[in-house]
Each structure stands twice: as structure tokens, then as C-alpha cells.
């Protein structure tokens, strides 16, 4: 069982067999996580750097935990803020890290394309932990794994990604991964938050949240960024919540037993009402646990077979 690639930069060109392998491997690690001693010696002696150019505590902790569960040596390298105009510094940083004989680099960066750039300047396995508004493959894999566990399949499912698709790194990875696995993906959100030409990816665009609920088996609800820049894309939080927020009332009205995912952290009362965020349709904490298993699977497959 090996993947067809040395790196995990995104799901755009990852074949079905690879995704299948990752999900199946994650399943065996999921079982490890239920044991009293949750540690296996699989990556003993391997050194992994978590290179975070953007703070993301949840993702970093999830990777770190996965690394430790596999007995790898994990090093955290966090740089606050972006490295605007410091390209050479960035390259030097990578070269320095590599000189310390690192096997894998997990990278999170505010600029799209940074993981690809890393593959060109260093020999380690590179795993993208989110690059700009491009991809976040392990998030999409854990979403897919969670859906598969809850519903039993991905093939033929209808999944709608709801919210700020244009500024999300989760959306694109989900679209590519789910489509590869045979799901039908749509997006729902204010048109200012839907990237241009997304229909060319075979993705339907829905502007009515009730319709999205009615027509889908799964909603993957994205976090709305509330800082100033992102706020320019919709009139008010009140209007967003009213027209795109998911409430228990809406779920009941549409009479659907729909599965709700959210990558967290949630803005309660905005994209999800508190009732829904704590309700029986959502699997938010389940996703978090699966996140560790998925990352263990990816680290294991890239770290031992390549």
C-alpha cells in the first residue's frame, strides 16, 4: 500500500485509489486511537517539522498529535504573520530546516502555491496544511472519512459546501476529493463569495439555503470570516445569518435527516445556530477525532512507503 505521490499538496490530481488507501488506512488508525495506549512505533526515528506561517492552533495540534502517536520526532516552527517581501528569508529558512535532516515538512502558509514551491527547493516529503485560499487536503480527507463512516459511502452522495467558498481553502479540496470519489458537489452562499467559473468544475451553484438543505445528503458548512476584509463581501452578519445561516427551524421545515459538517471554529448564530451546532445532525467533534486518524494515515503512507 503506497501512494502514487511523494507529497500531498492538494486533492486536485490525487487518484481515487490513493484517496481510498488514505481513508482505509485512517480507519485502522482510528482503531488505535480507541486503545488505552494510543501510540505505535511506525515513524520512530523520523523527524517532522510543522512549519506554520499562519497561526492555526487546531490544525497544528492535530498534526502534532498524529506525529506523536506515530512516534515521530515533531518540531514546531511557527512564524507569526506572513512573510511578505521576504522571499529569500523564506527560502533560507527552508534550507536551514532541511540541513537539520528533516524527513517531512507540514506547511501552512497564507500564500497559495507555497507547498509546491517547497517541493522544488527541498527533498523532504511535503504535506500541505492549507495554502492561501487554495487547498487544505487533510481537512477534505477527514471530511470525506467522516461522511463515509456516518453514511457508509461517498459514491452518489449529494454534498453541498455552504458559505464563503471563494475565501476557503477547504472548499476546493472537498470539491476535488468528493468528485473523485463519485459524489455530486454543489456550493451555496452569497454570490460574492462564490468564485468565478466554479460551474466549470461541474459544481452547481445554489443561492437558496432551503433548496440546499432539501437537495443534499450532506452540508459542509464553512466558517464565515468576520474580520474587516472578508466582511466587505456581504452586507451584514444579520443578513448572512438570516439568508444563509442554518437553524433547527430550517432543518425541521425541510424535513431532512441531513449530515452537517463544519471545519471549526464555529461562529454560533452566524453560519450555524447554537441549536444546530450542538444538535443531532452535526458531527463536528467527530471530525476533530477523525482529523488525527487521517493525518496519521497520510504521515504513515508518505513517511514509510516513499
Amino acid at each position, binding site marked *: 500500500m503506497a501512494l502514487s505521490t511523494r507529497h500531498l499538496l492538494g486533492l486536485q490530481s490525487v487518484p481515487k485509489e490513493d484517496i481510498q488507501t488514505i481513508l482505509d488506512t485512517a480507519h485502522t488508525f482510528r482503531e488505535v486511537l480507541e486503545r488505552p495506549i494510543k501510540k505505535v512505533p511506525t515513524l520512530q526515528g523520523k523527524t517532522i517539522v510543522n512549519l506554520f506561517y499562519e497561526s492555526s492552533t487546531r490544525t497544528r495540534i492535530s498534526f502534532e498529535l498524529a506525529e506523536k502517536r506515530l512516534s515521530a520526532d515533531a518540531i514546531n516552527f511557527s512564524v507569526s504573520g506572513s512573510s511578505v517581501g*521576504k*522571499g*529569500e528569508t*523564506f527560502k533560507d529558512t527552508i534550507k536551514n530546516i532541511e540541513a537539520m535532516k528533516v524527513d517531512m515538512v507540514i506547511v501552512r502558509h497564507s500564500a*497559495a502555491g507555497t507547498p509546491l514551491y517547497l517541493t522544488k527547493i527541498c527533498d523532504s516529503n511535503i504535506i500541505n496544511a492549507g495554502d492561501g485560499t487554495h487547498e487544505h487536503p487533510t481537512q477534505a480527507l477527514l471530511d470525506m472519512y467522516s461522511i463515509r463512516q456516518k453514511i457508509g459511502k461517498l459514491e452518489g452522495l449529494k454534498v453541498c459546501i455552504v458559505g464563503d467558498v471563494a475565501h476557503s481553502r477547504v472548499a476546493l479540496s472537498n470539491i476535488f476529493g468528493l468528485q473523485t470519489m463519485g459524489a455530486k458537489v454543489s456550493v451555496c452562499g452569497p454570490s460574492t463569495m462564490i*468564485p*468565478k467559473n466554479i460551474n466549470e468544475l461541474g459544481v452547481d451553484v445554489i443561492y437558496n439555503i432551503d433548496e440546499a438543505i432539501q437537495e443534499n445528503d450532506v452540508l459542509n458548512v464553512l466558517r464565515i470570516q468576520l474580520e474587516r476584509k472578508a466582511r466587505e463581501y456581504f452586507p451584514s452578519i444579520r443578513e448572512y445569518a438570516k439568508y444563509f445561516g442554518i437553524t433547527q427551524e430550517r432543518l425541521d421545515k425541510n424535513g431532512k435527516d441531513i449530515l452537517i459538517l463544519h471545519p471549526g471554529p464555529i461562529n454560533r448564530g452566524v453560519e450555524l445556530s447554537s441549536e444546530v451546532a450542538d444538535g443531532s445532525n452535526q458531527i463536528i467533534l467527530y471530525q476533530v477525532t477523525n482529523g488525527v486518524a487521517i493525518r496519521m494515515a497520510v504521515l504513515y503512507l508518505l513517511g514509510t512507503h516513499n
Partner: protein
Amino acid sequence: MKILLKNVDIIHPEDKLDIKGTTVLLDKGIISKIGELTRDDKADAKEFDFSGKIIVPGFFDMHVHLREPGREDEETVITGCNSAASGGFTGIACMPNTEPAIDTAEVLKFIKGKSSNHLVEVFPVAAATLGRKGEIISPMAELVEAGAVAFSDDGAAIKTSSVLKRAFEYSGMYNTPIIEHCEDESLSDGAMNEGINSTLLGLPPLPSVSEDIIVSRDILMADYTGGRIHIAHISTKNSVNLVREAKKRGVKVTAEVTPHHFTLTDDLIKSYDTNLKMSPPLRTQEDVNAIIKGLKDGTIDCIASDHAPHSIEEKESEFQYAPNGIVGLETIVGLSFSELIHKNKISLGDLIYKLSINPRKILNLPIPKFEVGSSANFSIIDPNYVWTVDILKFRSKSKNSPFDKRLLTGKSFAVINKQKMFFDGQLIDLTSV
């Protein structure tokens, strides 16, 4: 020094000259004879066999960024001129976004002074507004007197319609064009053309309508004021259509395009190569097709490089944070011949107009004459020479080009101007013995 250029074709479409396989005798860089030569003529002349090559009126690149003053680490007036000579140009217009900007006669004269002994003539485009801030128009009268050939806030469009109106009115007194970098600032915080590729790559999108809005505004204002507008580096289908339609109505509008905008599309950005980041950004194949059509029917008057040197350190960065622009002086001739002549898009005569005659006309500069007694201002081109671009061989101080290793057909072999010749990597003084 007498030199003899043998077996060469001469083409000067403006003067209706088209002579095959002739001989040109230059005495100290002055044309002393074309055609049959006597034995006396040939005595102690240095001979060059230019079989297969053509002499055309010296090429002129009307959109060049020399980084002096301010960023001499990226380019100086002299290295920029060397790059121009090597690329096949005898004249360039340089853009005012230096530090300080070319908004005073002093800065303008400083640049002219630096280039005064070079084969390549440098004609500064002055800032349209003080410090290129878009607030107060620059001292245009004084700048024209010092040698400004046009006004521009290149790097950005003139900020407001009111300042644009004044700039047209004031520069109109001297019949000097305004060169506009057409981009609506409020729509321009993206890193690449908005479309399926920006969506797929997760890069901040920059919509093509950003360019079209300013092209429309500028055409309307030129029409209203009677001013002359030159659209720099046109890149969208709609903008080409806007210019075509305005020309029909008699608006004084001209336009230029860069080789990268008629050669490359945003499909290539998949690699996140920062040498593909420019302003305006690479567009789609549909835009490229419209540009080719615009070149064919005369909507687009000139080809200009938008030569924009950047240091390796600056370009070696994340795509969305990297500076815009590429060096272009040493690939523009090769790309124009490869993409336009050898693919039968436009005629050789048209290309000579776009690379030599039209830019000079737009900037009110004299067209080189091929007459006995005139100082030779020649580009000597081998249209069929096949070569591979090697950025390490560039004369420019900077190497930021997406065309490295590209196979091109057509190359400049020599340029002659101001009694100097650039040939085989050497500058030769033709007045010496």
C-alpha cells in the same frame, strides 16, 4: 571608419523602400551609398556579409522601465540601454516610476545625461502627476521643454477623472500623449486574471473589467477634451474592442501590446512561477486571439516590452506577494517574429510599423531616413535565425523572464545609431579610424 554591409535586404515601409540583396556603405555612421559600389568606395572599408538579414528603421520600444534613479541594483540607464541594443533597439521611452519619479526637469535631464553617449536614445516619459500620486499635474511645460515625450503615472492609472481631465487639457497644449496603465485601483488587489484558473489555484482574482473600465473612461475623456490617449500594454478582448470602436469614431487613441500578452495565457500559472506575474496579468486564449486580431487590423499600433527588471530576491517569493513584471528588451524581437511573422499573423511591413515607425509617430519623434547623408539608424535582423533564450546572456542586470530556454526564430544581429554600432556583443565607435 567606413563599413560595408553586403548582401542585405533593406525594408522601410514608410518610405516605400524594399530592396533585396544590396550593399550599404556607411562612412563614420553616415549613409554614403546604397547599391552599386565602386572600387574606391570599397577601399579600406570593413566588410560585413549580412546575407539573409534585413535592415529596417531602428526599432523603438516605447515602454521600458529603467530603474535609475532608485533601484540601480535592478537596472541602470546604461545596462538598460545595453539590453535594448542587444535586443535590437536604437531608441526607447522610459517610464517615470523611478525613485524619485520623473516629475521634475532635473530627474529627466539626469536620465538623458546618463544615456547621452550611448547608441540607444532614451526618451523619458514624465509623470503625469507629482510623485505619481494622482493629485496635482506635473510641471508639464517644463518637462516637455526638458525632453518629455509623453506623460504617464504608469504602474497605475491617473487616479481620478478630474485630474485626468486636467492632464489631457494641459498636455494638449504640447500635443503630448497621455500613456495610461489602465487598471481600476479598487478592482486590482488580485494576483492573477479572474477566471477558472484563479479559482483552481486559489490566487486572489483580478477581473479583466478592471482594465476595460479605465480604457472606457480614458477614451471618453480623450474624446471630450480632444486629448491624445495611448493605452499601454492592452490585455483584454473588451479593451481591444473599445479601442477599435473609438478609433472609428475619430478619438485620438493608440494602443500597444507586450509580447507576453500575445504569447502567453494564465493557463501557465499552474507552476506559480513568479516570472508569470505581471500587471496587467496574463489573460485567456480568447483575449490573446482578440489581441492578434487587433494587431492585424491596426487597432493595436505598437509592440512594446514593458521591460520591468526585478531582483532575484524580490521575484523569489510567494506568487501573490511577488512584484509584477518581466524583462523583455532581449526577447521582444524574437517573440514578435516567432509568434506574428512565422505564424503568418501580420506582415513584415506591419511589424516594422509596430516596432519602429508607430511608436515614434505617437511620441512625435522623427522617423529614421534611409537616404544618403543621413545618420544611419538601423536594426539589422535575421528573421530566420533559430536560437534559444538564455537569461544568463541578457545584458539587462535582471533575469526575470518566463521565456528562458524558449526556442525562438528571428533575432537582431546588429544595431547602428548615433555613429555607433552594436554587433557581436561589442559596441563599435564608427567615427574612429
